[in-house]
């Protein structure tokens, strides 16, 4: 089965609201996580990453939270803008498995005016 999954396939938010995209993982050996944004016709674009020895990391308008107890990851986007509309993927790297990432199915975020 797939190790990384997302709770909701689609998410619709109003412009200016905060967005929260969730991700569950099942492999306790996962030690590094990345969030990617993919717009139509483009490759995934790096947003933010977090290592398993941290529980929170902040970027510009984005925050990633990691709860290792329940194997849950979330991406928070503040003041969501129309340009944030895209598919968001979380990906995990399993310790000592090399550098390849295991991607989940993705959540489609739609920002409405």
């Amino acid at each position: 089965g797939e190790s990384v999954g997302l709770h909701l396939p689609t998410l619709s938010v109003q412009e200016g609201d905060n967005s929260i995209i969730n991700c569950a993982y099942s492999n306790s050996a996962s030690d590094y996580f990345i969030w990617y944004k993919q717009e139509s016709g483009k490759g995934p674009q790096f947003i933010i990453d977090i290592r398993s020895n941290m529980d929170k990391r902040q970027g510009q308008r984005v925050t990633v939270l990691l709860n290792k107890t329940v194997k849950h990851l979330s991406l928070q986007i503040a003041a969501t803008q129309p340009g944030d509309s895209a598919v968001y993927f979380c990906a995990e790297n399993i310790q000592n498995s090399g550098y390849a990432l295991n991607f989940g199915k993705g959540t489609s975020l739609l920002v409405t005016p």
Partner: protein
Amino acid sequence: EAGVAQSPRYKIIEKRQSVAFWCNPISGHATLYWYQQILGQGPKLLIQFQNNGVVDDSQLPKDRFSAERLKGVDSTLKIQPAKLEDSAVYLCASSLGVSNLKNIQYFGAGTRLSVL
């Protein structure tokens, strides 16, 4: 800094034909990856190179897929013969790959393959 370059952007072939994709990674990136992304799904790793050596090709359908990175820079991915289920976007990514501490992979725009 130039990103990951891929060509062609689109390719349409008939089943049982052959096709090849090309990737030029970010300069200085030792690790190169090929992923397959089927519509509505996340990317799935096909093969990973470290310089010109294969690190992981466990998910590559070796009866029809092959890839090489002869000089440790550019890479080609080939499908021969193609099947209908190979219709997907083929993404190339690269990373510094010098340690497991921070492995940000940067992706190209991909090649969209349609097999008819």
